[in-house]
Structures are given as C-alpha cells and as structure tokens.
C-alpha cells in the first residue's frame, strides 16, 4: 500500500529516517556516463570523484543487457541538483549538474537509449539456454521484461530466434543495483523513494520505470520480485505485466539482472542471473501525470524466510523494444529518483 506525500520547499529533505541503503543520495561525486561493466564493484569506501565512461557509483552496481561499446553496456543517467530553480508558481525544475560539481546530495535521472547499437542486441532470444547465475555477458537476456497484451503474447508463447526485437510486448531494462544483507530477525521490508517524471520529459509511450527488489535462490534458480512502476498516461500504456508464478518459458525473460547474492566472478564483477522460476508481485502501476512534482512512494512486503539472506534493490528504466528499434532519436523520457530507502523490520 502506498503512502504518498509531497516533498515541501525548494530543498528536498531526506525520504526516511531509517535507511539500509548506502550512498542513497549519490554523494561521492561519481558520475558514470555512456558505458560501464555490468556488476563492476570497486572499493566503495574510497570510490569518489570518478567521472566518465567505465565508472559506477559507490555502493551501486550497473546492469544493462544493451551492449553499446566494446564489452560495456549502456548507462543513461543525469545527475540533478536537489535544490530546485523556483519559478514562482511551483517548485520548478532541478538543474543539471556538471561532472565537476562539488560533492553533494544529488537526484538521479534515468533515461533510455533509443538505439539497439549493435547486432548482438538485435536478437530477441539471446541467452536462450543459459539459466541460473553465470558470467558470460553474451548470455544475458536482451529481453528483460515480456508481456502479453500489446504486440504479442510472450507469457503463453515462447520467445524464439524469429521473434522481432521491435515487438511492443518486449522491453530492455537497465538497473542501478545495491546488494543488501537482510538481518536474520527481519520478516518484512519497506522500500521507496521520492520520485518524479517532469512535465518537460515524460516517458515515451510503452516505456516504464520504477524500483524492484529481488531475492534469489541460486540452487533452485528462483527469483522473487517485488516492484512498482510508473508509466505513460495513455490508455494504450495501461497494459499489464505478468505477475504471480510465471511460466517456465516466461521466467527467463522477466526481471533478469545481477544475482542478488552479490557473488562475484574472478574479475570482481557481480555475476548475472537468469531465473527458471520467477514469482512476481506488482505493488503499483503509477500514472506519470500524477508525479510531475516529487512525491514519496513506499511499499512493504514479506521477505523470504531463512538466515544469512541477501536482497537486491534496483532502480530501473525499462525501454520498449519498439522504441529501441525505431531509433527515432526523440526523447525516451526520464525517471527522477531522490534518496531511495530500504527499512527492514
């Protein structure tokens, strides 16, 4: 259940007094751009003021299946000033910060690529046959989410080598991921953030964004996902995504990403994970027109049982395959997030 309240004033306050996330306000001066390694894990405590390509944020791990530059994958984000430019009638917009801006709390704005870049991405069943956790980047699924109510039914029908990467029922999703230790005595978790889709940069039709939490059972190759999303306003964009226990054919094409255990490969990068069974709960599908100003959203769910557990927390931007394939060059829309939080209890 969501609790929504407007953030007051020109200066965004913290979202939640308790937060298990580290560097939730991207305060270390890092500014990754264009491309990076999936799962790249630096020494977080000393990772400050790293700007440009092949970088990350301290404590946050990059994931995108959209390879755009050698063995790097697409990074699409701006960093914005949390102090808005007040225009007299509303809060105003938050200005774009430079690479060399001083260390300060920042808003992250995620956006899409509007391009498939290379043929390796124009292959809807890429990764077919690889499940569980793995290290071969070429085996990641380019289809990160698949639906049944737009251009095709990929919940009841398999994605094959002849499936077009311009089908409106397919999405390619990129994440900023943080791996969290779940306290042994915790049974529930609350997660959320202050979010916004600005009036001047609305999500393009069929694109959606949001936050998901993943809990993986590596031995059974099962992923449990809890998420909310924000979407385009049109009736055509009010489509459903698969929830509940997904079919064996649909599971590997939904909510793939970095393994939530945080296990690393020999290069120190977090391994990838493609589930064979996926259990999904959608907490909300929000209309972007209701979020032109920052509002706090938060949701709760019951954790999987056990001890020494881990969970991934993921900010995401899901770009529709049709929009990717068109390469129209127009704006994808931007999803703004300030001070996301996780609270275990």
């Amino acid at each position, binding site marked *: 259940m969501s609790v929504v309240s407007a953030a007051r004033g020109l200066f965004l306050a913290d979202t939640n007094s308790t937060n298990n996330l580290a560097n939730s306000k991207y305060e270390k001066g890092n500014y990754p*751009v264009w491309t990076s390694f999936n799962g790249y894990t630096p020494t977080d405590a000393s990772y400050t003021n790293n700007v440009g390509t092949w970088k990350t944020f301290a404590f946050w791990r990059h994931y995108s299946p959209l390879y755009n*530059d050698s063995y790097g994958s697409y990074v699409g984000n*701006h960093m914005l000033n949390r102090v808005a430019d007040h225009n007299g009638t509303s809060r105003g917009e938050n200005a*774009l910060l430079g*690479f*060399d801006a001083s260390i300060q709390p920042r808003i992250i704005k995620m956006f899409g690529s509007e391009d498939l870049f*290379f043929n390796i991405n124009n292959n809807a069943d890429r990764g077919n046959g690889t499940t569980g956790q793995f290290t071969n980047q070429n085996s990641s699924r380019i289809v990160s989410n698949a639906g049944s109510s737009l251009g095709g039914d990929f919940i009841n029908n398999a994605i094959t080598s002849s499936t077009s990467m311009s089908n409106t029922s397919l999405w390619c999703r990129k994440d900023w991921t943080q791996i969290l230790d779940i306290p042994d005595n915790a049974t529930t978790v609350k997660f959320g953030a202050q979010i916004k889709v600005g009036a001047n940069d609305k999500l393009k039709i069929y694109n959606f964004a949001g936050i998901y939490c993943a809990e993986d059972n590596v031995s059974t190759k099962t992923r449990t996902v809890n998420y909310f999303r924000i979407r385009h306003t049109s009736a055509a964009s009010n489509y459903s995504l698969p929830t509940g226990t997904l079919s064996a054919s649909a599971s590997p094409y939904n909510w793939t990403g970095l393994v939530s255990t945080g296990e690393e490969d020999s290069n120190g990068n977090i391994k990838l994970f493609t589930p064979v069974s996926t259990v999904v709960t959608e907490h909300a599908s929000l209309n972007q027109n209701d979020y032109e100003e920052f509002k706090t959203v938060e949701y709760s769910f019951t954790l999987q049982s056990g001890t020494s557990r881990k969970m991934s927390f993921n900010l995401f931007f899901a770009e529709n395959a049709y929009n990717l394939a068109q390469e129209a*060059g127009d704006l994808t829309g931007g999803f703004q997030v300030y001070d996301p939080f996780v609270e275990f209890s």
Partner: protein
Amino acid sequence: MIYELIKTWIDNPASVTLNEIESAQQQMLTQLPTGPNLCLIAALSLIENNGVDAIENVRKRIRKYEQENNS
C-alpha cells in the same frame, strides 16, 4: 572543435591519433553533460574502444548530436 575532430575521424580514421581522442574525452568532462555533449562522449568512447568497427554507430551519435543541437 571536438565535433570537427570526430567528423575528421569519420572521413579518415587514420588521420586522428589515439592521443587526440583521449585528450578530447578529458575536455568533454569539463563540459556540462547535456544531451548533445553525451553524444560526443559516446562517439569518442566508441572510437577509442572499437575503432573503425563502430564507425556506423559513431555516425549515428554525430547525427543525434546534430539533431539535438538544432532542435
């Protein structure tokens, strides 16, 4: 100037050195990361990491730069 350097590389990749590309990348990190500037950063990274194999993608980034600059 960096736009012209990339256009020169597209016309004749051998006429631009890796040092010039790396120097241009450093210069771009002193600019505001606007949409057009991200296109130039992408083009320079593609040239550095992929060379002529990425020439079509470099061309696309430059077309996008021109489109955003003129919009």
